[in-house]
């Protein structure tokens, strides 16, 4: 009898629990579930382009106009790059929404770009209805198959019951560990069918458990070795920015007077005007940076991955040094260069542990300082021996334009780049102060990235001046996004470094192919000023050095998208330069 009542009580309690949770669950279409889930992930902006397979989602989006801003791009590649730029500028997860088939395939370059640079993004693609999958249906493509090698993970949602859980997992995977793009392919029938919506509180992924905290023993070995080193050097990469570790890095470097060099992706992770900073290293790295790498006795790689554009001939890279490597991705460690002290963990957390360990080691810190200051002096001597330089003439030099943009923005703008010479000059001559102010396609080297990325950055940071520094070749790869910028009042400033050449190609042909300029000249370019005007943007042009400042000032003063056409010296080259595969000490100088 007693047990009977007990059981009844339990049943009642269970019933109550059930009915309350039932009350929470509302019946919703897949389309609403998608949007409600995005809102729960904190999404308030989507970059997208409609099509048959996503029409249900688009129809629902109209009901959420006050909660989610949809930026209509002009090409799906633009949506992917814009979501990427949004993410890089803000640290949030960028979201793109496109249709099946051609909509999805148009995003591939954008996804691959984000994958190579470890950018957290979620891409939602429409798919043909589940019963037509595999039938060569209209606008069907095997999107999951095509994107498998260029996403961190991807999903095809086959059952509406999995929809919310999949979205939850996608955002979690995109933003944790080594970040990256995650794609969700959603068949049309899933967006119209109905189920109870409940957003899961947690994810459960048996095979995914990133290491955040570095191993104590490894960190302490690294700290001890730094303290003993006479010529230590930080080699920093994009990981510093992704993990928001700029402050911690600066603290460690300053505490010990350790010089810092950066990859293209790491620029902004350490203030460029800081006396401990010696610029970018690698193929177009500065003389002091490349010399420092080659003469250091202990190199601490921080969130960098020893890319071949950085190392040059890999056997010679840090030829006299032992290496420590801090990275959240174990597969990056020891991939190209043998590492003496591997530290798997989040850069910020590991640097914090280092600071803790250094606290109370004042004696050891001071006893090595003299040697370290001597080393700094040596690097400074290299810097004065071969500073970055160029010769002024009566035509505009590209480097001069970059310097002027730096000067007139006070180094406070968000600078996006395309790919090529203008990208390298930007890395060399714009002095980045803060993380998330250089947005550039480092890994994939995608021409056409910069402008849509600038649109995404401007959406994320309406308070900032956003530039795209572009070559005349690259800008034409996604020039159609001018329509987007004008439609959504995004006052992005495009500075075209116009040499009527695919400049970087021309430079390689000059140096390695006997000046045989095979198909690298852009004989026909549009009149960029008129082009801007045709779109309802502002077009400006400078053809002489003395006009450069005026044009930039004018551009900064208008609250509209602007194209600045800088007609520059046609055959200027980027120096220093290390020939591909050569040791990085083998620099061709100006």
């Amino acid at each position, binding site marked *: 009898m007693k047990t009977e009542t007990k059981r009844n009580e339990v049943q009642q309690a269970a019933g109550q629990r059930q009915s309350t949770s039932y009350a929470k669950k509302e019946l919703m279409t897949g389309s609403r579930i998608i949007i409600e889930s995005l809102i729960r992930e904190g999404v308030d902006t989507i970059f997208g382009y409609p099509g048959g397979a996503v029409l249900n989602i688009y129809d629902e989006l109209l009901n959420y106009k006050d909660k989610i801003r949809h930026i209509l791009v002009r090409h799906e590649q633009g949506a992917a790059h814009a979501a990427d730029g949004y993410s890089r500028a803000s640290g949030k997860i960028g979201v793109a929404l496109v249709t099946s088939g051609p909509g999805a395939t148009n995003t591939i370059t954008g996804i691959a770009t984000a994958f190579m640079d470890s950018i957290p993004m979620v891409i939602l693609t429409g798919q043909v209805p589940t019963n037509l999958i595999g039938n060569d249906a209209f606008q069907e493509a095997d999107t999951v198959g095509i994107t498998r090698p260029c996403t*961190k993970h991807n999903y095809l949602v086959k059952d509406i019951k999995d929809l919310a859980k999949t979205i939850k997992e996608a955002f979690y995977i995109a933003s944790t560990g080594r970040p990256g793009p995650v794609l969700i392919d959603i068949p049309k029938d899933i967006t119209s069918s109905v189920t109870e919506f409940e957003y899961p509180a947690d994810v459960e992924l048996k095979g995914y458990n990133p290491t955040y905290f570095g191993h104590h023993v490894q960190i302490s070995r690294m700290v001890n070795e730094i303290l003993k080193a006479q010529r230590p050097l930080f080699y920093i990469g994009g990981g510093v920015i992704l993990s928001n570790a700029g402050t911690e890095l600066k603290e460690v470097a300053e505490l010990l007077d350790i010089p810092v060099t950066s990859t293209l992706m790491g620029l902004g992770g350490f203030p460029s005007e800081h006396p401990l900073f010696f610029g970018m290293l690698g193929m177009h790295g500065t003389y002091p940076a490349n010399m420092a790498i080659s003469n250091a006795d202990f190199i601490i790689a921080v969130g960098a991955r020893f890319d071949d554009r950085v190392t040059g001939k890999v056997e010679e890279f840090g030829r006299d040094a032992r290496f420590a490597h801090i990275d959240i991705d174990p*597969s990056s460690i020891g991939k190209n260069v043998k590492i003496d002290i591997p530290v798997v963990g989040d850069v910020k957390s590991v640097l914090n542990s280092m600071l803790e360990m250094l606290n109370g080691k004042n004696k050891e810190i001071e006893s090595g300082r003299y040697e370290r200051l001597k080393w700094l002096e040596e690097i400074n001597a290299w810097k004065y021996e071969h500073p970055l330089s160029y010769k002024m003439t009566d035509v505009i030099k590209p480097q001069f334009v970059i310097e002027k943009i730096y000067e007139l923005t006070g180094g406070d703008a968000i600078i996006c780049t395309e790919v090529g010479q203008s990208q390298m000059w930007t890395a060399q001559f714009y002095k980045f102060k803060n993380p998330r102010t250089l947005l550039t396609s480092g890994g994939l080297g995608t021409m056409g990235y910069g402008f849509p990325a600038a649109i995404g950055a401007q959406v994320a940071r309406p308070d900032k001046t956003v530039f795209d520094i572009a070559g005349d070749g690259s800008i034409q790869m996604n020039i159609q996004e001018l329509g987007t910028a004008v439609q959504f009042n995004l006052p992005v400033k495009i500075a075209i470094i116009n040499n009527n050449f695919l400049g970087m190609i021309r430079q390689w042909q000059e140096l390695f192919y006997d000046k045989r300029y095979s198909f690298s000249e852009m004989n026909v370019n549009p009149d960029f000023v008129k082009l801007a005007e045709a779109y309802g943007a502002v077009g400006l042009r400078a053809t002489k050095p003395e006009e450069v400042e005026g044009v930039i000032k004018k551009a900064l003063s208008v609250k509209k998208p602007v194209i600045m056409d800088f007609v520059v010296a046609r055959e200027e080259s980027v120096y220093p330069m290390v020939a591909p595969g050569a040791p990085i000490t083998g620099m061709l100088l100006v």
Partner: protein
Amino acid sequence: MDKTHILSILVENESGVLTRVAGLFSARGFNIDSISVAKTLEKNESKIIITTSGDSYILEQITKQLNRLINVIKVQELTDEDSVVRQTVLVKVNADETTRADVFRIKDIFNGRIIDVSKNSYTLEVTGSEKKIESLIDVLKPMGIKDIVKAGTIAMPRSKKSS
């Protein structure tokens, strides 16, 4: 030095997981010498056994890259010393009046079974280490092998001997 390695890869049984694993090998230029996949007793888990070759650097890369895959739960290298490794082979071999007795004897020596018989051929099923299978084939070759099918290697760690 290049060596053969056996990897035991526990994965979540999601659709496409085999493509992810195999795709990783081809994308990174690693080779697969043999592969065998089947469900485990655990709901939603499968085990993939892959034999591959390469030096210790390659092996470390393969392991690290596999671990990056979201659906990969665990990667373990199995060595000949501390695991049991088996291959199974089906061989259809000529067997007329003159050779039938020999085939029968060989079957016994190799602890195999005859699973199909016709007027002039026998089909043998033999399980064993890779070496054993190789010598079986060597012995049968002179009689004329008509068809042969090998299953991918399977392996599991030996139980720890209590001592």
